[in-house]
């Protein structure tokens, strides 16, 4: 067993840059220490180990951020971190103007971002996610609203989805997030890992309740099912992730006693619902070729296509999970290019529903 593991490690180290490998291996190790076999989670140690950063009202590298606490929603204080491009006028640096729209002429897409962490780890103010959101602003030309949703196992399904929904409603009602000649808030939902799952589910609710979402961006979204797929068996333990840890996180998130065919985990599975005839937003789904969850992600893409929904699939064959934490690889660049195109193609809504499959060069 040890020999096979050693092979895994060597192979994995060849695929990613060394500092990326160190970063993700560090998380893998820390997370292993935090998950207890009985399903409980060492939250104090998790918060101790998590590297957090404050927001900055004074711009850094063209981006400034501030935190907003919404205490209006019924049960919880929902914290979001908002990232905006720095005002061109330096005398306005350091202050936040919440009375003016983003623009009265141009459309400025607002990305509501749900960080990953398998529903359990990280926060909006985790350094890895804060950094990623800042890069989204500068590279893709968007405003980002990062949602600090409630995490499992303390808060199971549907808490994260409820928080996501409340965040969407809050964003939609902000004057200072409006743009364009029609003064709308142009919303995209985005997330990596569990965040991608949350984005899907919030979009679902938005569709039901008639709230317009222009698109979904799912970065190796977290889905699953009772069945063990080929990719899970083939890639188990090879690239930072194991079936065992995935199972643990589903047990921690789903209602107790539920299995992985619960629709939150397996949206197009035996207990899933069809999206036929539903006005679901277009999607950009990014799949890492070395992610053991990929068969579920590809099944998700198929599920959307089957009911005539517009899906762009970006399949990055040599990418592992977390490839986007450091900008030191082609996958990162590719992702940003596709994301940028996706959120700035408002006029493409009326095009045919065919789904171009995009691959890394």
């Amino acid at each position, binding site marked *: 067993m040890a020999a096979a593991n050693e092979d895994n490690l060597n192979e994995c180290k060849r695929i990613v840059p060394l500092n990326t490998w*160190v970063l993700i291996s560090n998380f893998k190790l820390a997370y292993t220490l935090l998950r207890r076999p009985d399903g409980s989670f060492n939250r*104090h140690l998790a918060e101790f180990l998590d590297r957090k950063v404050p927001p900055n009202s004074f*711009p850094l590298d063209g981006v400034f951020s501030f935190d907003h606490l919404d205490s209006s929603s019924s049960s919880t204080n929902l914290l979001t971190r908002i990232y905006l491009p720095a005002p061109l006028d330096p005398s306005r640096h350091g202050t936040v103007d919440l009375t003016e729209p983003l623009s009265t002429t141009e459309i400025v897409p607002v990305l509501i971002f749900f960080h990953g962490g398998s529903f359990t780890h990280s926060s909006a103010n985790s350094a890895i996610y804060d950094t990623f959101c800042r890069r989204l602003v500068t590279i893709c030309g968007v405003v980002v609203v990062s949602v600090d949703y409630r995490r499992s196992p303390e808060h199971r399904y549907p808490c994260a989805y409820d928080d996501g929904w409340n965040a969407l409603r809050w964003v939609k009602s902000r004057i200072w997030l409006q743009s364009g000649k029609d003064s709308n808030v142009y919303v995209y939902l985005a997330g990596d890992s569990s965040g991608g799952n949350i984005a899907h589910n919030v979009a679902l609710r938005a569709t039901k309740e008639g709230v317009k979402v222009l698109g979904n961006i799912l970065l190796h979204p977290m889905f699953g099912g009772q069945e063990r797929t080929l990719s899970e068996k083939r890639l188990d333990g090879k690239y930072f992730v194991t079936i065992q840890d995935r199972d643990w996180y589903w047990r921690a998130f789903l209602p107790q006693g539920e299995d992985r065919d619960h629709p939150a985990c397996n949206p197009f599975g035996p207990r899933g619902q069809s999206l036929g005839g539903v006005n679901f937003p277009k999607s950009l789904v990014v799949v890492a070729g070395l992610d053991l969850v990929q068969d579920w992600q590809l099944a998700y893409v198929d599920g959307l296509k089957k009911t005539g929904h517009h899906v762009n699939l970006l399949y990055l064959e040599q990418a592992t999970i977390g490839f986007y934490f450091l900008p030191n690889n082609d996958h990162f660049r590719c992702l940003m290019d596709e994301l940028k195109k996706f959120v700035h193609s408002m006029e493409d809504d009326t095009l045919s529903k065919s789904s171009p499959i995009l691959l890394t060069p």
Partner: protein
Amino acid sequence: MKREHSHRETSSVKVDSSSMTANKEEAGGFDELLVVLGYKVRSSDMADVAHKLEQLEMVLDDGISHLSDDTVHYNPSDLSGWVDSLLFDLNPTCDQVKPDQDSEYELSAIPGSAAYPPGKRTRTGSDSPTTTTTTRSMVVLDSQETGVRLVHALLACAEAVQQNNLKLADVLVKHVGLLASSQAGAMRKVATYFAEGLARRIYRIYPHDDVGLSSFSDTLQIHFYESCPYLKFAHFTANQAILESFATAEKVHVIDLGLNQGLQWPALIQALALRPGGPPDFRLTGIGSSLTGQSIQEVGWKLGQLANAVGVNFEFKSIVLNSLSDLKPEMLEIRTGSESIAVNSVFELHRLLAHPGSIDNILFTIKSIKPDIITVVEQEADHNGSVFLDRFTESLHYYSSLFDSLEGPPSQDRVMSELYLGRQILNLVACEGEDRVERHETLVQWRNRFSMGGFKPVNIGSYAYKQASMLLALYAGADGYKVEEHEGCLLLGWQTRPLIATSAWRLNRVG
């Protein structure tokens, strides 16, 4: 479905030249991309850290080894040190030496796009020699969306003051008063204090320092202690570090640079009483200003009563000084070689920054008595920059967060706490020169100062973190209070805004 065909280099993944450069860029030797994510790993150590991570993975995979929940972790930013500790904890029989918890690292400024410390200011105004700008973090509450005009008016007034346009400032400060009266809650209170500070500055009616009002100050501080967890956190975390450093010492000596009402020490005395193996002899030296001379003795006496009640041998000495800068080593009557020494400072050191040379004096004195640990708690804020407007903006955000955390059902404790903080605001905004004593600086700035002063960090670990978090849950109730770990120090904040920082130090034994 077509699959991509990637070109695979023989040794590494294809990365483009610009990111290669970024990786190689020296940031004090640390990998810059990881620094931004909160991890300090020297590029030259990367392969070694990777190797150790592999070892750890294999050890844990065996299924035999496991880490107890009680394992204490230190400074996760120092990945190399953390990994070494884990290896040691999992393999104690192996002939590794337990790694030094207080790993040294350079505190030189980190260039490039690191998230912290942040980059330069772009406002006009000279940089002070000790400038390390903060990120001016801000938490916006629902109420503040409507209070935005108030904030803007305050800042506009401060800008007018900065430009010495007192006529305009006068008009604006009255406008602020009007706007403030239509606000509610914390926003109104904070704005009122800041407006008063501005008005005093404009009309030159400066608030006096605490002459004759020191007992009132003490009273206010007690209310502040009762109404919110900041002082309790400060005392608790400092005491944890002190206890750990005292370990099994038989005689211990704590020097409190600002005794006030001695609120920190009952808990330490009780913890010492409960120490396995029995308590040490405990000696406390309490320092206070000449205005509180009489009451210091009373405080000492009361603590003595408590110590007697729990069976701890107690000795007390008071030192009365006009300024901490006047503290000389011989005043402390150190019993060299026979006692373990802790120097404790809670919100005292920043006051010395008002007088040139004072901070160096006290650090020199501290060094010369060779303490085993120095615990420092300070406000986590950059309120000592040379540009008035910057200080004003920073402190407006800081005290807004602080006042927000105090919101709740009205009580005398709360009202007095607001007054306690209000006096700090007035000093900060209206005073200058030696009168301006509320010269708060950030943890990064204090770290630099201590580092350059010949001290090295003593990391406060996950045990203290956990205990502090649990303590907060007991006392504070509201889930807005958050403890954060930053490179061996603990910070307490409201929501995502750190407000106070506890750090611990010892002498850098060079050579």
